[in-house]
């Protein structure tokens, strides 16, 4: 036996109470881990330091004239540029079949995002040469059981064709794997030219312009030059690096970071009170035993450490389960989304924050009862006067 065994046995002397405490900590850390991972996923796509995005100053739902692309790619400091449009795509069902379909200029798109599009030269050339060609991320193709060469009817909840149809047919020419955090996670790519020629409104307008600078060190200078170039025009621009763009994109969904802070803060606040009160009660019930330990020769410091150790064990156990549960849950979500949406997975940043929070929670909730046990006099504990 050692102190750890004693702590563990004391912790589980009332199993129902301990299990309920563990469950409450588990829930708090599950929420914390999922929300933080979600926030991380939508703000941290695979961003290159020298990859930037120019979009309409109003927001990303407002388009830009295609002429901006031609002007921008010739500006100093721009190494390569492309453009893309949000297609508003879905397959079969508007809700269940939602897909991030982008109308892109194939050659330039590969120039800017090539490292995230691992396809063979043959597939790439096929995508370049066929106007109705479509490339899809592998999880998307797997989910819908698409085969290369298959004609895929893709719907748009925004655009329509001259005949009133909202459906375009594309030929799947290849699929690509998307590594963790890839900018192309869940993407489906179609030709801008084909899209542009068949839509009934918004023709010759593009969603946004991703581009590479010659070096990340010139990012600010290039961004400033671009936005100045289009200042006072009908469509003023806002140029950001890719990470900032991802964050502003996420901000359209709401202030996720604030939501995370508030929800998690409330959860941890409640846990602090519940666990703190219960720990104090649990140690108070053992006043006599604390007195016995001190009588036997356990120092006050050692008794303090043991009580703190109990609350730490509780916190680490509950939070560990919570983070583990979140990892499993996120994996399920990831599989269910089949690569659609942001790359949802357990973010390492959860551990970075979760472990210190768990330790702090354990120490804070255990501090008051531990100090009480530390200060307890043997004669008072045993009622021996």
């Amino acid at each position, binding site marked *: 036996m050692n*102190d750890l065994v004693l702590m563990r046995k004391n912790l589980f002397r009332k199993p129902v109470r301990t299990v309920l405490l563990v469950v409450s900590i588990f829930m708090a850390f599950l929420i914390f881990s999922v929300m933080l991972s979600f926030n991380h996923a939508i703000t941290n796509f695979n961003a290159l330091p020298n990859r930037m995005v120019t979009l309409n100053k109003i927001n990303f739902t407002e388009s830009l004239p295609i002429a901006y692309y031609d002007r921008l790619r010739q500006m100093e400091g721009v190494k390569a540029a492309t453009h893309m449009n949000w297609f508003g795509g879905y397959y079969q069902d508007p809700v269940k079949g939602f897909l991030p379909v982008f109308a892109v200029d194939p050659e330039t798109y590969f120039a800017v995002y090539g490292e995230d599009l691992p396809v063979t030269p043959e597939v790439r050339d096929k995508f370049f040469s066929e106007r109705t060609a479509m490339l899809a991320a592998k999880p998307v193709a797997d989910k819908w059981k698409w085969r290369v060469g298959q004609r895929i009817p893709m719907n748009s909840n925004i655009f329509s064709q001259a005949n009133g149809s909202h459906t375009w047919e594309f030929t799947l020419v290849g699929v690509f794997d998307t590594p963790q955090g890839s900018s192309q996670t869940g993407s489906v790519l179609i030709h801008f030219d084909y899209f542009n020629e068949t839509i009934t409104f918004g023709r010759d307008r593009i969603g946004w312009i991703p581009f590479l600078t010659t070096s990340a060190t010139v990012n600010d200078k290039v961004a400033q030059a671009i936005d100045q170039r289009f200042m006072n025009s009908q469509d003023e621009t806002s140029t950001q690096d890719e990470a900032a763009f991802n964050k502003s994109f996420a901000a359209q969904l709401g202030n996720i970071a604030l939501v995370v802070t508030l929800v998690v803060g409330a959860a941890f606040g409640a846990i602090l009170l519940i666990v703190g009160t219960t720990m104090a009660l649990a140690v108070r019930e053992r006043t006599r035993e604390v007195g016995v330990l001190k009588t036997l020769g356990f120092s*006050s410091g050692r008794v303090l450490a043991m009580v703190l150790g109990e609350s730490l064990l509780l916190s680490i156990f509950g939070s560990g389960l919570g983070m583990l549960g979140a990892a499993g849950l996120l994996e399920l979500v990831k599989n269910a989304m089949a690569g659609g949406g942001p790359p949802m997975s357990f973010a390492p940043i959860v551990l970075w924050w979760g472990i210190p929070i768990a330790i702090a929670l354990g120490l804070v909730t255990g501090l008051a009862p531990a100090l009480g046990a530390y200060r307890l006099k043997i004669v008072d504990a*045993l009622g*021996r006067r």
Partner: protein
Amino acid sequence: MADLIRLTDVEKSYTRGKEKIVIFDRLTMHIEAGDFVAIMGPSGSGKTTLLNLVGGTDRADKGAIEFDSARIDNLSESKLTQWRAANVGFIFQFYNLMPVLTAAQNVELPLLLTKLSGAKRRENVATALKIVGLADRAKHRPREMSGGQQQRVAIARAIVADPKLLLCDEPTGDLDRTTADEILGTLQVLNRDLGKTIIMVTHDAEAAKFAKRVLHLDKGQFDERELAA
């Protein structure tokens, strides 16, 4: 025999509300090594306070307390704790065992304060349980044992670190006569065969007969003739 414990002009009082209750006023006494002393007296006479002072779980207001010719009343809190762990075994009326631990684990508790290896600790625990006749109950929890068996475990816990002094506060107060006599017989064996010095506080005159001598405490003072004997 040399004195194991010597109290000289010890004063002790408590404050209860605005009232000051004097327990000992210049108490002087000594107990020899190897003695088995029963201390009797009415409630409030200071019996338990005396055990607290001798066992280092409470402090005197004034006076000197010596153990084996060394002062313990002026030790720091941590030194006093270490001294207690090394030299004193405690046996309480209500056993005070940890309910979540087995008999063996309860007995092992004082050894966690030593540098003994796990194997050596287990060996000492087995020996202590054998001495009190509970070798076969090592894995039982307190609630699975009778009161007498629990008190035997408490005795094993008190002797496992081989202290010179055993302090017993009403060790048979919660037991029937037969069981009480068995426990007291065990204490006699520890005193006679292992040389433990025992101070036992009791209200029970029958229990006191197991001691080598009986001291009566009243209003914080011993009977001078008994002390001199």
